[in-house]
């Protein structure tokens, strides 16, 4: 039920800021290893950029589908995280033991480095999609809730 905002200033600012925020989110995600930030912050930033553009331009699509897709994307993000964790468990090591990930030609510490990046991507997807999904839910599409 969010109608597009009718101010040109809002539209222009949203158009400018959305890609900048997304770029910053990517930076935060990738540099989580050696600067503050990581999956969760990046995910929230992504969600913020999407929420910003929704607030500025409204939602045209059928919202039920969008909301459901968002939560499914969230599920996929978590499955990515847990899948990276499950792989070592199936191979006989511990759950989430990235040191035992089957990446050839690397030391355990490097494997852990890439494992961390992998799960951070999963967290980013999960958090961004779920935050947007919660936003959709809260944005009050359900005026017709049975009384």
């Amino acid at each position, binding site marked *: 039920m969010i109608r597009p905002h009718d101010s040109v200033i809002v539209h222009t600012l949203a158009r400018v800021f959305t890609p900048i925020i997304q770029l910053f989110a990517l930076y935060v995600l990738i540099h989580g290893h*050696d*600067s*503050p930030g990581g999956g*969760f912050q990046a995910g929230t930033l992504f969600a913020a950029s999407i929420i910003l553009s929704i607030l500025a331009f409204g939602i045209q699509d059928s919202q039920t589908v969008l909301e459901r897709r968002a939560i499914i994307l969230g599920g996929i993000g978590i499955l990515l995280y847990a899948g990276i964790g499950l792989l070592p468990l199936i191979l006989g090591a511990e759950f989430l033991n990235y040191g035992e990930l089957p990446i050839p030609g690397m030391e355990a510490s490097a494997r852990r480095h890439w494992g961390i990046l992998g799960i951070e991507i999963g967290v980013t997807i999960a*958090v961004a999609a779920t935050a947007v999904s*919660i936003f959709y*839910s*809260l944005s*009050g599409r*359900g*005026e017709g*809730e049975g*009384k």
Partner: protein
Amino acid sequence: MADIFFYRPHFVAFIILFLLGVYIMVVNLNLVKKLIGMYLMQTSIILFFITLAVKKDSTIPILLSSATAVTPEAYANPLPHVLMLTAIVVGVSTLGVSLAMVIALYRQYNTLEEDQILGKMQ
């Protein structure tokens, strides 16, 4: 007991925020105000944990070079930070769910006051 107010400002602020939050959650009848109280209570616990992690004359827990051996005294304690990152996420998740309940309640009873909702439930 009195010197605690001078030497532990963080702890005093923690107690004020925590008790304020719990008080509002229990006493205030407005549902959104209760959630503001919940937010204050959760952040006060973060304050408590973060002050545990402080080390005098230390820097942020990002290691500068791999050449020299790390002296743990030079960096802030990372463990409470990690715990509190999780707690922040838990807080915002609880907030989302509770606001969803508030919206559903408002749709049903057209008010945000707990006593009025109770009155309409009868």
